[in-house]
């Protein structure tokens, strides 16, 4: 009896630990962010059109007051994520439909692990593929067509990031499509619908809530992704929608702000925490919404 109690206490402590650490992280983010907003007004951060976090080290330095407008970073983040989703959504969904509705057992036995291997590649490997292979290729092709292409572009980072999240979309959507009851397919096929009509008119609409949940999870992954953009998207904080430009993202700037020697009370360093909190807030919201959608959908057919 006493042994059981000890075990229960240990188990609870282990579970509590993870929550405590998370709470601690969030709290430290919040405290540092509050400090940051003591130095830089919130409105400058949220609505500023310029990001250049260099602050003066000595009072006599000129031209480096530092501007902390997050909009160029949001712009870069969303541009790359959008490119990634444009690449990943059709690839992920079509492979999910193929896997769940058309593939033979033996094909599935090969393709599914193949996609899962894709999910297991370290992002740094994707990153140097983007930086060393795809970006130069895009630049060369663009130049031949007479286009101005930066050597590190949003397009290269976005495409590679898209490929990275394909397995996420396809495996989540595959699960969702598989959980559409066979009886619905039978009903449709039994009325003389073809298989493709059944998929288009019955299976996919039934799976739509779950599929959109999986897309949201993938988007949140893309927004928080760091390594690929760090290596392949460049550093220029620009307000641009041109995928051939170099852009930068929230994650990349956090890394840049915190590498090297830093003063821990300067606005420059503290801004990283504000960015972190902002990013955390966005991805948390997306994840909560996405998980809610997916769960609600699964209950519907249980």
């Amino acid at each position, binding site marked *: 009896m006493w042994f059981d109690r000890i075990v229960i206490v240990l188990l609870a402590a282990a579970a509590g630990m993870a929550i405590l650490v998370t709470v601690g992280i969030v709290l430290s983010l919040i405290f540092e962010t509050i400090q940051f907003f003591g130095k830089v007004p919130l409105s400058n951060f949220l609505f500023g059109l310029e990001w250049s976090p260099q602050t003066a080290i000595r009072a006599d330095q000129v031209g480096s007051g530092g501007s902390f407008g997050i909009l160029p970073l949001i712009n870069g983040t969303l541009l790359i994520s959008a490119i990634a989703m444009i690449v990943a959504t059709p690839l992920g969904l079509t492979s999910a439909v193929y896997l769940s509705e058309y593939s033979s057992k033996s094909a599935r036995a090969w393709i599914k692990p193949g996609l899962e291997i894709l999910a297991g590649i370290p992002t740094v490997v994707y990153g140097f593929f983007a930086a060393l292979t795809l970006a130069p290729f895009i630049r060369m092709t663009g130049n031949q067509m007479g286009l101005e292409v930066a050597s590190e572009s949003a397009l290269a980072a976005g495409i590679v990031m898209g490929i990275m999240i394909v397995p996420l979309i396809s495996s989540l959507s595959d699960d969702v499509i598989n959980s559409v*009851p066979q*009886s*619905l397919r*039978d*009903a*449709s*096929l*039994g*009325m*003389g*619908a*073809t298989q493709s*009509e059944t998929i288009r*008119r*019955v299976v996919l*609409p*039934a799976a739509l809530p779950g599929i959109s949940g999986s897309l949201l999870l993938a988007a949140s992954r893309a927004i928080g992704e760091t390594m690929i953009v760090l290596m392949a998207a460049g550093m220029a904080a620009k307000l641009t929608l041109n995928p051939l430009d170099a852009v930068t993202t929230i994650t990349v700037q956090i890394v840049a702000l915190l590498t090297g020697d830093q003063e821990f009370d300067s606005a420059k360093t503290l801004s990283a925490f504000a960015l972190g909190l902002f990013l955390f807030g966005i991805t948390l919201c997306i994840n909560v919404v996405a998980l809610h959608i997916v769960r609600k959908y699964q209950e*519907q057919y249980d």
Partner: protein
Amino acid sequence: MTDPIITARGVDIFYDTKQAIHNIDLDILPNKVTAFIGPSGCGKSTFLRAINRMNDLIPSCRISGDMKIAGQDIYAPAVDVVALRAQVGMVFQKPNPFPKSIFENVAYGLKIHKITTSKTEMQDRVEWSLRSAGLWDEVADRLDDPGNSLSGGQQQRLCIARAIAIKPKVILMDEPCSALDPIATAVVEELIDNLRKDYTIVIVTHSMQQAARVSQRTAFFHLGSLVEYGETKSIFTNPTDERTQNYITGRIG
């Protein structure tokens, strides 16, 4: 005597190497309700699903022999399964309305078979189908509600409305009342009796009382063979085969 609408001759069905149906000859008469009864695993559902080739969906399933509907061999290579299933509709064990509105559920077949594109014709046909299924009065003012907001019995009648919307010749029903309560069952049974005027109905049922109530002809299956087939009345009052008698009196099954 009227000509049969469905004729099966020497039908064998296999799952891989296991034989589920042994050499069945069976004639099904038009505008009658024919009940398939028998203990679980006797092959009655398998045989039912062979009538509109739903077994095609099971990769391991093979069929040999002759199965004709209105004189046409439905397993001939040239046969279009889509057209066949438009002629031979199906209602399943568990009500399975699509996650669409009541209206869209019934209109589904009209759309996929492009029976009509005119909006008013579509509405007329949906109303007609719902009326034939005895559901119109209950849903007329909420056609846009989701199909699965209905009760189980209403859902099953919705599925029947969906099946008859494309005016099939034959309706196959695989234990259509097994998921329904007794009151909903009575409503569906009455509906089946009404539908007999316009359709040929084949129903698989576990309930002998149901077979006795709704059918004019009954086929008793046992271990993949057709043991006895004839007028429902004579099967139940005067079975010729010992196995039929044992099943009906509750000694097997």
